[in-house]
């Protein structure tokens, strides 16, 4: 099994006629993902490598039954594209776009979390369920079917760790890049919960980085609620402490936000944390062997 995307995914790509949209939609389709539609306003009736283009997401959903939308729209127009995807009624929205203003995302997030739809990203690499579907920009060659669920705030670090896992013969059930922005639609906790419920995920690898306190919150949550073993990696030990975001920042989170602080929070809850991508893969191998 896998989470979020699989053989039942019917994907509509917003911004499909753009350079990146066309390139990655085509690659996703080539991987076997059921890419049923694309959207570019004013280009209805065209197609991109056989994928029909519609003027609006709602049209695409009505005509093709798309259940998942991928947003490949430049940041100035991405908020509108997100609302359009939400109103179209798709179950899952994956926003690749980088650079959306935080205030816009606060509003989208507040609106979205009151309903039942799922948003992954923005500023994320997407999701791959190896051998089943790839939605996003991930380099598919480093992923193999397997029983590790990988969730990460960083795109390129996801690829790096997947490659290290592959070198040890370990594949994944699904790989979810939740995005590095301060406001993302789904948190570590959301995705860890899904992996924990997936009978074909035997181990969760959680890849964090400095800033915020999502890793610390996830540590608490894992200890209390998650039965699947978890190993972790945190990037940013060499980031200088530097200036605080006003004095206000630290008060809010009640956490330092440093890599060391996150590592300690995770280890205190029994989650092993690797110091570099190679070591994380080794920890994963050990954890799988121990089962």
């Amino acid at each position, binding site marked *: 099994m896998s989470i979020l995307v699989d053989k039942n995914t019917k994907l509509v790509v917003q911004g499909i006629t753009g350079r*990146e949209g066309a390139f990655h939609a085509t690659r996703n389709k080539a991987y076997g993902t059921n890419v049923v539609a694309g959207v570019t306003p004013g280009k209805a009736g065209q197609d991109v490598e056989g994928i029909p283009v519609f003027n609006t997401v709602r049209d695409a959903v009505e005509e093709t039954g798309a259940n998942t939308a991928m947003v490949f729209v430049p940041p100035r127009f991405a908020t509108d594209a997100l609302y359009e995807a939400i109103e179209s009624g798709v179950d899952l929205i994956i926003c690749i776009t*980088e*650079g*959306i*203003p*935080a*205030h816009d*995302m*606060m*509003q989208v997030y*507040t609106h979205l979390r009151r309903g039942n739809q799922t948003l992954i990203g923005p*500023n994320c*690499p997407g999701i791959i369920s190896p051998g089943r579907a790839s939605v*996003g*920009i991930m*380099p598919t*060659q480093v992923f193999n079917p397997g029983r590790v669920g990988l969730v*990460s*705030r*960083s*795109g*390129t*670090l*996801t*690829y*790096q760790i997947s*490659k290290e896992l592959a070198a040890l013969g370990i594949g994944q059930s699904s790989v979810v890049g939740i995005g*590095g*922005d*301060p*406001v993302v639609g789904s948190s570590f906790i959301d995705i860890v919960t899904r992996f924990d419920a997936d009978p074909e995920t035997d181990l969760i690898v959680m890849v964090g*980085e*400095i*800033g*915020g*306190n*999502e890793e610390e919150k996830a540590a608490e949550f894992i200890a209390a609620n998650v039965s699947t073993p978890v190993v972790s*990696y945190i*990037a*940013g*030990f*060499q*980031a200088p*402490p*530097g*200036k*605080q*975001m*006003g*004095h*206000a*920042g630290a*008060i*809010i989170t009640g956490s*330092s*936000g440093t*890599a060391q602080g996150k590592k300690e929070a995770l280890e205190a809850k029994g989650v092993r944390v690797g*110091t*570099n*991508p190679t070591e994380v893969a080794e920890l994963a191998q050990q954890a799988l062997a121990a089962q």
Partner: protein
Amino acid sequence: MALPSDGAICFVNTSQGRRLDLFEYQGKQLFARHGIPVPRGEVADTPEAARAAAERIGGKVVVKAQVQIGGRGKAGGIQLADTPEEAEAHARKILGMDIRGHIVHTVWIEAASEIAKEYYASVTFDRGEKKPLVMLSAAGGMDIEEVARTRPEALATVHIDPLTGFQAHHARWLVYHAAIDQGAQQGVVKILQQLYQAFTELDTMLVEINPLIWTASGDVVALDAKVTIDNNALYRHPELLEMQQSVTEDPQERLAQEKGVTYVKLDGDVGILGNGAGLVMSTLDVVALAGGRPANFLDAGGGSKADEVVAALEVLLSDPKVKVLLVNIFGGITRCDEVATGLLTALDKLGATLPIVVRLDGTNEDEGRRIIAEQAPANVVVEATMLSAAKRAVELAQGVEA
């Protein structure tokens, strides 16, 4: 020097455009536009200009160093002047001062205020709740983090739903629970509303007033101003874009900003170019584990195309402290062949001879490696893994050093 809003978080933010703190005087200009009372003042960058400003303002003035760091008062960066002559003398001492690594280039001259009480007010983006957080305290003028730790009851806080916004009842709740003096309540309520409006309309991540003063004459006035911008929203705020440009000082960081590259200078000698904030941070960590010292953080960003790679290398190579370059790319939306082409173009254009260690993986990796193998000069070395590339770069840096 570019000033990411906080050390730890800055690195993460590099992946989505940095946040930037404005100078006090810029913040006050913005506050004034949003109706928040601030003392009358002027900017000066010479002692003579400071004197002239003090003359125009009249009466007692305060001369304040404009730096992006706290503790300037203790460092002597804030001085009261009774006369324009005295203002000039203070400005002469303050301009050029080094406050915890920050050189003072500008002073702000403002009318002195008679302070009755000092409060604290701010609106922050709360990353955990993904909502704005408004904070108010009657214990202003001091380190608010300290107040929050030792006397949490003195700090009133309320989260705001970003769709329905800041409302009168929020302001009332804050004012009552921060125990603001009754005579100042109305003025504080008004400023809270304007502060929240400034927070949203300017797309900021933080607006902070510390101290917010209640004057002897009964007015409530912002005596300081801290404003942190969300760079992702600069496209709709051309006036903030201008302010941002005046803040950056470090030559590499200024160049990076011009070229649209996310860059933070560090102390070491291994120049690092990667794609994606997480991978770049991990690269720094691995370089450190291998015994080396990173010279910088440079995220060429998602989808880096050949000319972005050229721009990134221009920034890196302009730093004389860099002895070795480590190029660590894992292509997703970035394509390795474009990185390789960019690298060759940059070397050709800039004629760099320092050792360059390259690791290329991901989208179009075969083409990328082929381009390097076939066309790169001898100072370019390819390594198969991130770990081996980091080790090789550290070895080379130490060899150069020796």
